[in-house]
């Protein structure tokens, strides 16, 4: 496969940010070629500490200082003398400058053909090295302050369940993008011309869908935040009426603040959500103040979960989550990273599914996936819980179902909270069947498919014994054969010889017609 194969058709669209010639960055240099992050980085990272110190210090001393200067050097009795204030200030500046300088000076990174390496730390030195072809996802993150300086953080994820493998903060935005392109090109197994390493251009990106701010606002309003706010308000009002003490009104203040903050966070995180596709995988852009661009290379999605809450049924929206080995369970500050579609219509869900799983493995994917989203009973070959499961699942027993296509397993759940989980056979880790005493009495079995850590936990509840056993052995066999024919880690390399599935699943399929569209 030649160097530019796969990017050919998009050559004209390649961004101009990377002119040909000996450009900067990531050329496959000698082993000792190390680079440093942008010098402003520590300030951007540590600005909260600086601001906090200024506020604490300033509150006590700023008045004194102004007053002292105003009155010609004489300070007000009891206040700190001017020289003390100034020297403390100078010391603080020097300390910060030294700490920031050292942390910048000792942080170095290197991208070679096979590895990304980062050395950091002043007293406790840390050297990290990750294999490029093990990349699970790459994020380019821009916190608000970094955006002002046009800087960006590059996050390189490997399969370690959420701990960020490599964090380069901060780089010039252009350099971050170039670095991402270089890493992805190497990870994809493209041959890099050793004489012209900078010839790697960023894979052209084609925008597939964008969500309007109105959609995000609507989704936020119809979310659990509103329900929680209403319930809390009702409680407070009830207490107010019960006790008749108006002092309880004070409770509303923190309540309003909390609800407002939750709305604000949900809205700003998902605002400007755009989904694009490139030969290097699916790229998500989002964020109002802090922006983030996530790239998930082909074949890195371990499982997909589509959910719909009862409120969203009014508008027909769905939310799509993914399990990616590098993202982990999505806790902490990285919240929301596992969302690939915060609120989408059914057609948009199909589009996104088409990007993630180009090969649905079934002749009529729209019908099958729609049946998975909101179908019931045996429609489209779904196999659901037997009638006797009514005792355990009085309402949802006809929704609890599975369907195996040639390439993926679909698990469907829930009547009120609709859920559909899709796991490609290739990405099956292990399987288990479970049966408790009550289920044994009823002849029911739970099926669980283990995926990497993430928001999606694929399961099928309360299956009939025979169909559960069939699913268990069948799925093990399907997973085994999918592993043999599976696409290689380096997605631009030819897949190993085997049954020809390439037509649908080859990298260029992203530019083909989406099979999930009617």
């Amino acid at each position, binding site marked *: 496969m030649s160097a530019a194969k796969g990017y050919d058709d998009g050559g004209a669209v390649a961004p101009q940010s990377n002119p040909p010639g000996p450009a900067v960055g990531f050329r496959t240099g000698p082993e000792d070629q190390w680079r440093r992050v942008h010098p402003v980085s520590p300030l951007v990272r540590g600005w909260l500490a600086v601001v906090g110190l200024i506020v604490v210090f300033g509150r006590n001393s700023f008045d004194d200082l102004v007053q002292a200067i105003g009155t010609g050097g004489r300070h007000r009795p009891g206040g700190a003398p001017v020289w003390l204030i100034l020297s403390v200030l100078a010391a603080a500046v020097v300390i910060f400058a030294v700490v920031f300088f050292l942390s910048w000076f000792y942080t170095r990174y290197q991208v070679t053909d096979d590895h990304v390496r980062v050395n950091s730390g002043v007293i406790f030195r840390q050297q990290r090295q990750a294999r490029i072809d093990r990349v699970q996802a790459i994020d380019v993150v821009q916190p608000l302050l970094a955006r002002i300086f046009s800087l960006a953080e590059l996050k390189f994820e490997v399969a370690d369940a959420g701990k960020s493998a490599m964090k380069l903060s901060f780089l010039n935005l252009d350099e971050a993008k170039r670095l991402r392109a270089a890493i992805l090109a190497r990870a994809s197994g493209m041959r890099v011309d050793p004489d012209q390493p900078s010839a790697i251009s960023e894979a052209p990106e084609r925008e597939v869908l964008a969500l309007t701010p109105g959609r995000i606002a609507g989704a936020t309003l119809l979310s659990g935040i509103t329900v929680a706010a209403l319930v809390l308000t009702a409680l407070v009002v009830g207490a107010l009426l019960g006790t008749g003490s108006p002092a309880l009104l004070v409770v509303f203040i923190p309540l309003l603040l909390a609800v407002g903050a939750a709305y604000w966070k949900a809205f700003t995180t998902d605002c400007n959500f755009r989904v694009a596709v490139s030969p290097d995988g699916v790229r998500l852009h989002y964020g109002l103040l802090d922006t983030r661009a996530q790239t998930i290379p082909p074949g890195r999605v371990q499982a997909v979960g589509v959910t719909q809450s009862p409120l969203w049924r009014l508008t027909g929206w769905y939310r799509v989550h993914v399990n990616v080995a590098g993202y982990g369970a999505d806790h902490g500050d990285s919240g929301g990273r596992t969302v690939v579609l915060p609120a989408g219509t059914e057609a948009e869900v199909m589009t996104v599914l088409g990007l993630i799983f180009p090969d649905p493995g079934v002749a009529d994917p729209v019908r099958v996936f729609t049946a998975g989203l909101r179908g019931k009973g045996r429609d489209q070959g779904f196999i659901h819980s037997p009638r006797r499961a009514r005792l355990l699942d009085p309402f949802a027993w006809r929704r609890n179902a599975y369907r195996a296509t040639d390439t993926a397993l679909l698990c469907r759940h829930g009547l009120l909270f609709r859920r559909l989980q899709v796991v490609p056979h290739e990405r099956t880790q292990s399987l288990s*069947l*479970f*049966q408790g005493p009550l289920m044994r009495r009823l002849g029911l079995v739970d099926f669980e498919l*283990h995926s990497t850590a993430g928001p999606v936990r694929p399961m099928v509840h309360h299956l009939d014994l025979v169909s559960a056993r069939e699913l268990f052995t069948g799925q093990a066999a399907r997973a085994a054969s999918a*592993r043999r024919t599976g696409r290689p880690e380096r997605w631009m390399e030819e897949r190993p010889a085997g049954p020809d599935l390439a037509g649908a699943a080859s990298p260029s399929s992203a530019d083909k017609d989406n099979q999930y569209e009617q």
Partner: protein
Amino acid sequence: MREPIDPVGLDFERVSPKLVTVRLIERGLGALVLTTVASLPLVLHLTGPWRGLPAWLAWSLPLAVLLAMIWRLVLIPRQVRAIGYAERDDDLLICGGIFFQRVMVVPYGRMQYVDVSVGPVERAFGLSSVKMHTASASTNAVLEGLPAAEAARLREQLSARGEAKLAGL
């Protein structure tokens, strides 16, 4: 002795019956400690400092703990007999449990690493435990009570097959 949820047409290897003794010792010690702790109120009640505690409560607490512990010990032989594993071409099957039955299949191609561990009691009886890890944290595939030689063989076998079949994550 095949449990109903296991896949049909497979012969499961059973683990060593010595595991019964190992578990009896381990759990017996645990039970002893727990029962002692649960008897503390009773002792305090009888010796004086905690006269106020109702007698029925003082007696029933350690008794309940003791009964639960005995029940756990009684189950052990059946539990051990229920544990089994089968090596197939592409994956390893593990089954176990009496009331709460579970059967799990772990593909060789998805195994990230294999742990072999030996506790003090296990060592005295020449047994080891083998634990298989995949990229998923929910894969809880442990086989206890394998004779040391069998554990070593299984480890080598699993590693070799895993390497041959590994395909990404």
